[in-house]
């Protein structure tokens, strides 16, 4: 047996003879201390900072609500509608101004035509009431108009309306001045350079014929067609009012009625503008 084997033999004998263990109570105390040292620190940390994620979530929620409240309710759609209706509105305002000037001229004169002021407010009240209808059309058919009509359609429409208003202004002035002998023949003499006999004023077919001549079919587009439909009834009413005024035997009875209607329409138009 060599020395190394003897050393191993001594070691084995020692390990077999030395079997002491620490007391169980000491084991439990050390293990508890080890668990407390490891588990307590993260626990304290967790209890100390438990509100961090909650505070972050609350901050995000408050910021989101604030941003939503600060933002205007609809930003994109009204902008599109405004772009679409800006030029027609301007044109309609111009037309309204033109017609207002004509109405003023109509309303000013004649003692011989007392019903004229009562008849003229009708288009004035009618014109401002047009924008809501146009807005509805524009709001509902923006995409269709963009697809169908070229981008310059509203401007062309406005120019046409202005031209029509300028053309109609002398005719209205003539309509407002009733001829002394033949009241029915005077307005029918000329209207926009068109001979009167070809225009039976009370029939829609004649009006559509007139509008066809003003707006030839090859250049007609959807938006101008709406303009034609919008303008034609007012003119028809004006013409009718003029003819009634001239044909009426008791014009004083209609005056308060039409003035009340015009007043109510004016009020609505004021809000509409």
């Amino acid at each position: 047996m060599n020395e190394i084997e003897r050393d191993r033999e001594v070691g084995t004998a020692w390990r077999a003879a030395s079997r002491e263990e620490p007391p169980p109570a000491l084991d439990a105390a050390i293990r508890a201390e080890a668990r407390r040292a490891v588990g307590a620190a993260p626990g304290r940390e967790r209890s100390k900072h438990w509100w961090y994620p909650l505070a972050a979530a609350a901050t995000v929620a408050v910021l989101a609500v604030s941003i939503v409240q600060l933002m205007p309710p609809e930003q994109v759609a009204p902008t599109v509608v405004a772009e679409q209706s800006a030029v027609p509105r301007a044109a309609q305002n111009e037309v309204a101004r033109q017609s207002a000037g004509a109405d003023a001229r109509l309303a000013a004169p004649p003692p011989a035509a007392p019903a004229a002021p009562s008849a003229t407010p009708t288009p004035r009240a009618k014109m401002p009431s047009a924008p809501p209808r146009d807005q509805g059309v524009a709001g509902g058919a923006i995409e269709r108009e963009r697809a169908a009509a070229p981008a310059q359609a509203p401007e062309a429409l406005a120019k046409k309306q202005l031209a029509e208003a300028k053309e109609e202004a002398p005719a209205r002035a003539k309509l407002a001045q009733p001829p002394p002998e033949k009241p029915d023949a005077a307005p029918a003499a000329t209207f926009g350079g068109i001979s009167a006999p070809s225009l039976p004023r009370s029939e829609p077919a004649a009006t559509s014929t007139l509008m066809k001549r003003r707006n030839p079919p090859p250049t007609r587009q959807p938006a101008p067609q709406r303009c034609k439909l919008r303008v034609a009834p007012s003119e028809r009413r004006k013409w009718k009012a003029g003819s009634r005024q001239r044909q009426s035997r008791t014009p004083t009875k209609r005056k308060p009625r039409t003035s009340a209607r015009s007043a109510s329409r004016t009020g609505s138009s004021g809000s509409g503008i």
Partner: protein
Amino acid sequence: MPAPATQSDEDLMLAYASGDAAAFDALYARHKGGVYRYLLRQCRQAGVAADLFQDVWMNLIRARSSYAPTAKFTTWLYRLAHNRLIDHYRASGHLTLVSADDEAHQDAVAAIPAARSDEPQSRAENRELSERLRAALAALPPAQREAFLLQQEGGLSLAEIAELTDVGTETVKSRLRYAVGKLRAELGGQLRDLDDGLREGLG
């Protein structure tokens, strides 16, 4: 993640440093006996050994975050125990020597598991042999005893013992040679009988 039983000491210590209390349990179960016996053989008082033992493990718990696996875990652990022993020696002012009638020694002898055979004569012989072996170890010089205990209880190599005790490897080798030789000379022919009897007692 492997089971704690199959993990190395270093992995267990790192796991415990990262918050795994079960890793400490496995580590403690592996080394509690060796550290306790090392301290018990050196200070020779069970109560003092228990206090030192607790201090060593508390130091380990406190130093868990600074542990770096640059060396074996057992080297680090027994260095903690060695340093605590030095502090104890400095505080007490002298090295206590074990004696046959020391109370702690008697407790340690009584803690030896009895042989499985119920023969009173065999059990008395084994207890006598164990007592003589402990007495022979206690008679060794402290440096030789420490080197022997670090090798047998801690399982440290010569280099690790040399590093821990701040001496050269040859010095450690010499100390171990002297220690084993004295034990053998003290026990004589009874060493083999002691070994066989203890093996029988442990089953």
